[in-house]
């Protein structure tokens, strides 16, 4: 166990020894310079025989490693970094006597060789921050000196002259301190008054002029190009729109065709459907007609035929019956007319005879009795003749039934009138004789004797008849005259049997 401790201790001892020795090696950074002091310099024998020691004991190390013995050697570090030092002077007088203010910046560092490092270390090792202020003040004086040797135009424009002047000043002021002026740049120059501004005015004016000209030309060219471009665009747009219009037209046409295709097909289809329907309707009509023919018309025709036949039959039968009826009626009417006429004739004759008989009753009663007896005899005598004539007239009338019908009717009218007249005639005569009947006592003074009285009665009757004829239009006188002639015949025959005209025209004169 002890042996292990011992061996381990020896190993650790060796490692620590090596580490300790190596830790005495110091390494300088790239921006650092080491000065190791403490050793003795080499002995140098001068040309005059004097013995001295050089600075080799003061070792300068840049960016490398150095072994520093403890206690007997001392390591010092100096920074080699650049230092930005602003420099500003006011009221510097240039070579032409123009006052100006300058501001600049200097980049300063400790020199990069052994001598410079030694010099800088001697001056600034313990006050490296003081480098800035020292250098700034030194450079201000140097700048003032430089401005005094140059004109403002040279300061501004002649970089080489300015750099040369700066280098000269730096050589005299900074190099001795181990400092290097890397660069020195002026940042601002302000001359008294408007000196600097006036320097640039001609050029500014020229530049302004050229700029204006260039702008105007550029604007002109731009406008021209713009117009040309617009024109080209317009042309292209016109072509585009024309193309678009053509395409639109084609599209519209195609759309219209497409849109019409449907309705046209529909119409054609409808037309076919209608044609088919029309055929169906025709067939249906034909079928219906055939059905009607079979179901309605033929039965109707048959019915009509049957009805016609029946009606014809009825008509014929009616005609026949009417004919028969008519003939029967005619015959009955003729018979009645004849009967009436004959009865009228008879009555008339009887009345006439009666009246005449009564008129002459007073005067000729006796004669009348005689004549009556004579007439009776004549009547008996001629009775056969009258009957024969009647039978003859009847057969004749029957033979001429058709022609005599109307005349029979007309004759019936006249006969009626005559009948009425004959019926009222006695009243007329009575009325005419009424005034005479009211006479209580009548004295007749007349050359004609008492016969005028009868004439007066006859004149009254004649006047009455004339009056009635004027009023009624009937020639009563003529009728009476014809009646008188008939009465005379019957008086002459002394029979009341009425004569019947054989031809029927006996009454025609009465109507005239």
């Amino acid at each position, binding site marked *: 166990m002890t042996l292990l401790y011992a061996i381990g201790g020896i190993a650790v001892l060796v490692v620590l020894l090596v580490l300790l*020795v190596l830790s005495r090696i110091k390494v300088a950074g790239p921006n650092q310079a080491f000065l190791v002091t403490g050793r003795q310099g080499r002995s140098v024998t001068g040309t005059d025989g004097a013995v001295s020691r050089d600075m080799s004991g003061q070792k300068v190390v840049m960016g490398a490693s150095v072994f520093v013995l403890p206690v007997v050697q001392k390591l010092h570090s100096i920074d080699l970094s650049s230092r930005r030092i602003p420099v500003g002077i006011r009221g510097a007088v240039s070579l032409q006597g123009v006052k100006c203010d300058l501001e600049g910046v200097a980049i300063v560092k400790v020199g990069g060789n052994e001598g410079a490092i030694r010099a800088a270390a001697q001056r600034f090792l313990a006050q490296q921050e003081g480098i800035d202020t020292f250098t700034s003040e030194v450079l201000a004086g140097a700048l003032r000196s430089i401005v005094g040797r140059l004109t403002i135009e040279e300061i501004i424009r002649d970089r080489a002259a300015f750099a040369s002047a700066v280098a000269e000043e730096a050589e005299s002021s900074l190099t001795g301190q181990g400092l290097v002026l890397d660069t020195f740049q002026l940042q601002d120059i302000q001359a008294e008054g408007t000196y600097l501004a006036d320097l640039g005015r001609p050029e500014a004016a020229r530049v302004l002029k050229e700029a204006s000209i260039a702008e105007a030309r550029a604007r002109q060219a731009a406008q021209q190009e713009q117009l040309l471009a617009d024109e080209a665009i317009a042309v292209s747009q016109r072509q585009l729109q024309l193309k678009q219009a053509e395409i639109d037209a084609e599209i519209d046409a195609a759309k219209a065709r497409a849109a019409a295709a449907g309705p046209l097909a529909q119409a054609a289809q409808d037309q076919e459907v209608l044609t088919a329907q029309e055929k169906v309707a025709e067939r249906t009509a034909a079928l219906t007609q055939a059905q009607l023919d079979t179901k309605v018309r033929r039965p109707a025709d048959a019915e009509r035929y049957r009805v016609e036949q029946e009606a014809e039959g009825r008509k014929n039968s009616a005609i026949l019956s009417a004919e028969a009826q008519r003939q029967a009626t005619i015959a009955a009417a003729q018979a009645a007319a004849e009967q009436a006429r004959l009865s009228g004739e008879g009555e008339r004759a009887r009345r006439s005879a009666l009246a005449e008989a009564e008129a002459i009753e007073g005067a000729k009663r006796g004669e009348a009795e005689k004549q009556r007896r004579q007439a009776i005899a004549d009547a008996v005598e001629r009775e056969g003749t009258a009957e024969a004539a009647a039978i003859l007239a009847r057969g004749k009338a029957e033979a001429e039934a058709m022609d005599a019908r109307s005349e029979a009717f007309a004759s019936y009218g006249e006969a009626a009138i005559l009948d009425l007249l004959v019926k009222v005639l006695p009243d007329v005569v009575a009325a005419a004789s009424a005034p005479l009947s009211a006479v209580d006592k009548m004295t007749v003074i007349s050359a004609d004797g008492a016969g005028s009285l009868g004439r007066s009665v006859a004149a009254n009757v004649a006047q009455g008849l004339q009056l009635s004829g004027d009023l009624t239009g009937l020639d009563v006188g003529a009728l009476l005259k014809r009646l008188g002639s008939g009465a005379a015949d019957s008086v002459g025959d002394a029979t009341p049997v009425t004569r019947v005209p054989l031809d029927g025209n006996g009454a025609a004169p009465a109507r005239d």
Partner: protein
Amino acid sequence: MDPIAVAFLAVGGFGLLVLVLALVVGEIGEFGGDADGPFSLPAIAAFVGGVGFGGAAVTALLPPLAGALTVLLAVVGGLVVALPLAAGAIRLSASLRDMPTEPTLTSDRLLGAQGVVVSGVPAGGFGEVRLSVAGQQLKYHARSAVPLPAGTPVYVVDTPSDTSVEVVSTAPDGPPASPGGTAS
């Protein structure tokens, strides 16, 4: 455990403690002594530690003997271990003290350097040249007997100061004839 061994281990531990303190806190050689030699801190610490741990190892290896004899033998063994350690530390430190490193640029190195004029060198005035020295580009103020325009290849013939050089043109046809150059 053997008290003798414990004592030797304690001595070795002390040596280790000194080394650790020197590493962590820094050099503690202010109390005197040679900084680089037999009496430097690493040498002393190596010797002490070597004696301690070496003696402890010897006590562990030896059979049980008399106390004094054991201590004597342990010290002898410790010295055998400690002396090479101390010598090694001294040699290592000495070898590192003179180790070769990058040499620092001096003005003498600029002599014969070649470069090019970046800002015209007027007659009697300073211009600027860019020199290529030891693999790096350096800019120096330059003087010349004749004006040199920018772009002229130059050759350093003198270093009047740490920041300026005297150059001559190495252009094939010589410097331009114009007296003022471009820097007039």
